[in-house]
């Protein structure tokens, strides 16, 4: 079946512009995660959605970052007034259920964002 998809795969934007990154999770997966990966580093947790519960936004680095999810489907990560330090790969993952460890997250290919 289809995996997690993300679009665009690459995005180059000018400093100060807003960008929207999209994630389509695996159908039926109730949990969705956004991560940021800076060059040569591991992943940093950004935000987590689980069903209709309030999202965990504790990883968002500033109020320029926001994310939405419609039901248990598509999610959009928005970065306003982009800065050069926002340049990174943004990865989305989904899982069937986060509760009852252990579980597995399925990752999309990521969006590589470059802010010039």
């Amino acid at each position: 079946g289809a995996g997690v998809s993300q679009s665009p795969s690459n995005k180059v934007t000018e400093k100060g512009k807003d960008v929207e990154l999209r994630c389509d999770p695996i159908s039926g997966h109730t949990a969705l995660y956004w991560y940021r990966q800076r060059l040569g580093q591991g992943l940093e947790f950004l935000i987590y959605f689980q069903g209709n519960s309030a999202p965990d936004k504790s990883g968002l680095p500033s109020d320029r970052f926001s994310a939405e999810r419609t039901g248990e489907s598509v999610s959009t990560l928005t970065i306003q007034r982009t800065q050069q330090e926002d340049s990174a790969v943004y990865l989305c993952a989904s899982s069937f259920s986060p509760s009852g460890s252990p579980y597995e997250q399925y990752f999309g290919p990521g969006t590589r964002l470059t802010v010039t």
Partner: protein
Amino acid sequence: SQQGEEDPQALSIQEGENATMNCSYKTSINNLQWYRQNSGRGLVHLILIRSNEREKHSGRLRVTLDTSKKSSSLLITASRAADTASYFCAWLSGSNDYKLSFGAGTTVTVRA
């Protein structure tokens, strides 16, 4: 910010050799997972080891966990060119059951 480390940062081996990489973390954990990331692609889950387990095998992969030392190792035996990738450890800690923390990764190059 990183809450653990992986070493080595990079590893180059000949096809057929074994590759070992280590992960250290700082908190108590529920489980520890290893992921592989091929260049330009997303992460693929390899193996999970629970906090009450000491060793686990999956095909050519062997994972150990030492909770007293807060460390884990991943061994890839009889490496192949297709094993060339970055490998990350990740863990869940405390009462959290979804927020993975990641190590910085080990980049493995397998020479044919």
